[in-house]
């Protein structure tokens, strides 16, 4: 409001001369308008930067990669760019996706149900779990890779460089995301539903299983899909596990050696030949199609099924 008074206060006696007063105030108002418009323009510009960057990135990848998608999908890795493809990596990514979903959904939703429906939040212990999950969500992904390397691949568990070790590492990575999203979904179910169910004699678990969880499923699914799509795009933890890049067969089981799309893309990017960069663009397109359709599905589901209470 002090802006209206402006940097130059009205000269003495100004209000005795209505015409001049109107002129001065008009000028100030004009300046205010200009400042407001400028600010708005700057905000709009900063918003557009992200959008434009996304459009340019997609256009660039489409332009370079589209012609190579077929080769990438149908062939296996090779030292010759003319024959190289990423089918084993695509299959590896699909395996990883299924396994990560299998591991994280029950555990993540279970933890969320405990924290939202059962835990007494005044207990120190429960608050510790909450802060801990918040912290884990912000731990850099490469640190999970180190955990996988030191604990799952080589050390204590000793699974070797297998699909199972990769899936477990990625599961630990996305678990906090899934828990946080599921908790939000559970929290949006109103208490009247719980009270009604309990008043009819249902036990706490019956209430949770038959009333609260079904009502929260759209939110949980949306959060889980977004978490999964994060896992699918991660390269850093898998690199550390020693996921191989020259795997010329599709994964056959949990103990199979494997590669994944982000790893294959990284490998092609780091080669000096330009042909491999084009293949990388093709593989990026495949990865983006998988991710974007997952995202679109999640966003559609959120708008279609999410109830407003």
């Amino acid at each position, binding site marked *: 409001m002090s802006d209206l008074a402006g940097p130059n206060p009205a000269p003495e006696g100004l209000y005795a001369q209505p015409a001049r007063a109107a002129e001065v105030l008009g000028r100030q108002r004009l300046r205010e308008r200009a400042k407001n418009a400028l600010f708005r323009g700057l905000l709009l510009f900063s918003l557009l930067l992200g959008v434009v960057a996304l459009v340019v990135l997609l256009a660039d990848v489409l332009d370079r990669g589209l012609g190579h998608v077929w080769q990438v999908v149908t062939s296996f890795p090779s030292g010759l760019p003319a024959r190289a493809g990423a089918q084993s990596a695509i299959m590896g990514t699909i395996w990883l996706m299924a396994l990560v979903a299998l591991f994280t959904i029950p555990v993540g939703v279970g933890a969320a149900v405990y924290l939202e429906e059962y835990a007494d939040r005044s207990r120190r212990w429960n608050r510790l779990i909450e802060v801990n999950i918040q912290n884990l969500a912000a731990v850099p992904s*490469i*640190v999970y890779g180190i955990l996988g390397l030191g604990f799952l691949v080589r050390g204590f568990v000793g699974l070797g460089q297998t699909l199972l070790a990769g899936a477990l590492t990625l599961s630990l990575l996305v678990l906090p995301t899934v828990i946080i999203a599921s908790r939000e979904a559970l929290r949006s179910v109103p208490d009247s539903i719980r009270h009604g169910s309990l008043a009819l004699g249902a036990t706490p678990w019956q209430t949770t299983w038959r009333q609260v969880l079904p009502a929260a499923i759209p939110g949980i699914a949306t959060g889980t899909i977004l978490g999964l799509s994060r896992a699918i795009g991660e390269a850093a933890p898998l690199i550390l596990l020693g996921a191989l890049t020259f795997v010329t067969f599709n994964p056959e089981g949990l103990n199979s050696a494997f590669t994944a799309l982000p790893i294959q893309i990284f490998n092609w990017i780091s080669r000096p030949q330009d042909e491999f960069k084009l293949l990388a663009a093709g593989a990026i397109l495949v990865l983006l199609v998988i991710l974007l359709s997952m995202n679109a599905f999640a966003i559609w589901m959120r708008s279609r099924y999410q109830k407003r209470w």
Partner: protein
Amino acid sequence: MSISQGGEAAATAGTARVRAVLAVKPRWGERAVLGSLVLCALLSVATTVAIVVALLEPTIAFFRHVSPIEFLTTTEWSPLFSDPEFGVLPLLSATLVLTAIALCVALPFGLGSAIYLSEYASPRTRGLVKPTLEVLAGIPTVVFGFFALTFLTPLLQDVWFLPGDPPGVFNALSAGLVMGVMIIPTVASLAEDAMAAVPHDMRAGSFALGATKLSTTVRVVVPAALSGIVAAFILGVSRAIGETMIVTIASGGTPNLSFDPAEAMQTMTAFIAAAGIGDQPTGSVGYQTIFAVGTTLFAITFLMNMLSVRIVRRYREVYE
């Protein structure tokens, strides 16, 4: 007396019956469910413990070879060479440079986007732009790395007008700028949440006093949401510090104690990735350096996260 005795007996029998009716049979099913849910929640604690244990053991072994003073104060980093040097400063300085570049993009543009979305945008614009930012947030980091290396770097080389050599194939500038774009959605979405939580009455009050939209936003809404905005900034910083693939791909693999963004430099995360690709034998010093640098990285990001949690908790303005 006998009466009272009889009465007492009747009363005891009565309560016994009531008790029998009310007696809650131990519901073992319910307890088993609760037990397994607790286990799910405890897995997160176990993960943290496992991270700390997995990091610490090789790190301690590493510091038996290399003194912490040498690690933190000398300026040569070549742990995988036959004549190794263990000064982590070049990795730290590179992380600092890249984080600074990324923040120059992510903080102003992220905050600007948040303000626009929260205060100015029509519902239609919001409905269009928010999913776009979500998609941007979901782009894998290898893809951003590819974009930095094969699109932005050549572009920068073409239009370079500043004094000094133009950037090389690998340079911190391009990686940092793209990393900044990557972090915009994180900062924007958290800061927007914070501003959306400011009650409408405060804006209405400000307008009623004759304030313009600009001064309402800058002097009322942003200060009221400051703790959330600061937390968003800190999370942005910790994401920049921990980002791996963009810097590995676009900023190169040479440790370089320099603050010139046109040069190639290796961050902590990029070193970890490079050493991981090299497949170090278990127990070798090369293997242990992964964990020593990882511990440094984990400690830095952990402290930042705790700081952010604390700021939100202490300075949050609570509105009814």
